[in-house]
């Protein structure tokens, strides 16, 4: 599989050349174009080794998310006997980041998964009760295995090499290495800090590893846009 990311960072487009019988998995709705020889199949993203209950849970989450909006956790599989090309792009204006996986694990915030190829496994991970209070971050996607992972952002992507402690606004989080410990808390501490600072919830990382942050925040866009809409 070969890939090319064009038009970075504002309107990134991922172009993938698939070899015979190679498969690209991509977030539902993200396909821009494909060769006619490439077939698309929609699959539940329950993980390759998920048991019956794992699959049932995934169906449940997928249906809920399909109905309330957001990432569906259904993925489309693209492949063809003689290979071909697939183009994929996210919904918002932003970048695409290629993260090669070689056995390590990463966590992505729910909207940041775009596509993957190879022996890559994915699981939904609950962000904790406090994450429910925030508009984002109730779920993380845990990605492991070996292959290629493509993450996406709203805005450009900045890599932070954490050595010690680092704090990121929840809405600006794209993903991080699972070698880092993380804790979701209010920015200023306490309720006042949560609601008055305008910063909402933050993710505090401890240890060593990479954190990827996006330079824009979809919730901030919505907060800015909402008062200007006609009543």
């Amino acid at each position, binding site marked *: 599989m070969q890939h090319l990311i*064009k*038009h970075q960072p*504002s*309107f*990134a*487009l991922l172009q993938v050349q698939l070899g015979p019988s190679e498969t690209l998995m991509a977030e*539902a*709705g*993200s*396909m*821009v*174009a*494909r*060769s*006619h*020889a*490439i077939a*698309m*199949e*929609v699959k539940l993203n329950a993980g390759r080794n998920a048991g019956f209950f794992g699959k049932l849970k995934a169906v449940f989450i997928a249906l809920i998310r*399909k109905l*309330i*909006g*957001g990432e*569906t956790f*259904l993925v*489309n599989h693209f492949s063809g006997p003689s290979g071909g090309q697939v*183009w994929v*792009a996210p*919904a*918002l*204006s932003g970048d695409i980041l290629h993260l090669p996986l070689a056995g390590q694990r990463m966590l992505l915030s729910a909207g940041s998964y775009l596509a993957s190829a190879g022996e890559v496994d994915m699981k939904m991970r609950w962000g904790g009760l406090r994450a429910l209070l925030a*508009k984002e971050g109730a779920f993380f996607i845990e990605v492991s295995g070996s292959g290629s992972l493509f993450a996406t952002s709203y805005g450009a992507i900045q890599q932070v090499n954490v050595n010690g402690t680092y704090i990121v606004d929840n809405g600006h989080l794209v993903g991080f290495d699972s070698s880092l410990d993380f804790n979701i808390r209010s920015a200023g501490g306490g309720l006042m800090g949560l609601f008055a600072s305008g910063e909402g919830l933050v993710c505090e990382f401890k240890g060593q590893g990479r954190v990827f942050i996006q330079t824009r925040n*979809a*919730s901030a*866009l*919505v907060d800015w*846009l*909402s008062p200007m*809409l*006609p*009543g």
Partner: protein
Amino acid sequence: MQINLLYQPSQALAQCWLQPGESVLAESGAMVGMTPNVQMQTQSGGMLKGLKRMFGGESFFRNTFLAEGGGGEVLFAPALCGDMAVLDCGARQWNIQNSAYVASTMGVDVHTKAGGMRGFFSGAGLFMLESAGQGQIVIGAYGALEAIQVNGDLVIDTGHIAAWESTLTYSVGKSGSGWIASWLSGEGLVCHFQGQGIVYLQSRNTAEYGGAIGPMLPPRKN
């Protein structure tokens, strides 16, 4: 007319240089700036043509910009953040998604064409634009524009199509194997292009943008 595209791909601006006495036609609201000797005239090109354009999702009126008493400059830009491209007409002719049209030289006839049910299902509205004659068309996109040479077959999400060469034949259909699979896949409708020719893709889709942001907005109060 000489056209220079600036600030591609995110914030593209078309800088057009007009010869003395030369004019350019543009979508209503596309003008950003112009030299004082450029005269703007608003015309519908006839009631019927104007109405047809309105059905096509364009505006009723189009504006003509004429350089008088010397050369002139006009700047054009589309409404959304994105790329622009110049399409040469003559040897090639084009079909254009109606929201992508920005401006055209006078020698090109850009007319509304009923896409029939195909156009309706494409989500592009019942009408699209078709070019004839000689000259240039400026298009604007949501996202970056990517020119792809089709050799045989290509499948494109209908919301990502900006323009395509008239040599290509196309049909609109569902993306997956069945309607339920297509709904779950989130891909909706796709356009199957066949033949030889160029397709301009836009790297973002306004419907998907709306789908991502819309549910987070407060409900409309009527």
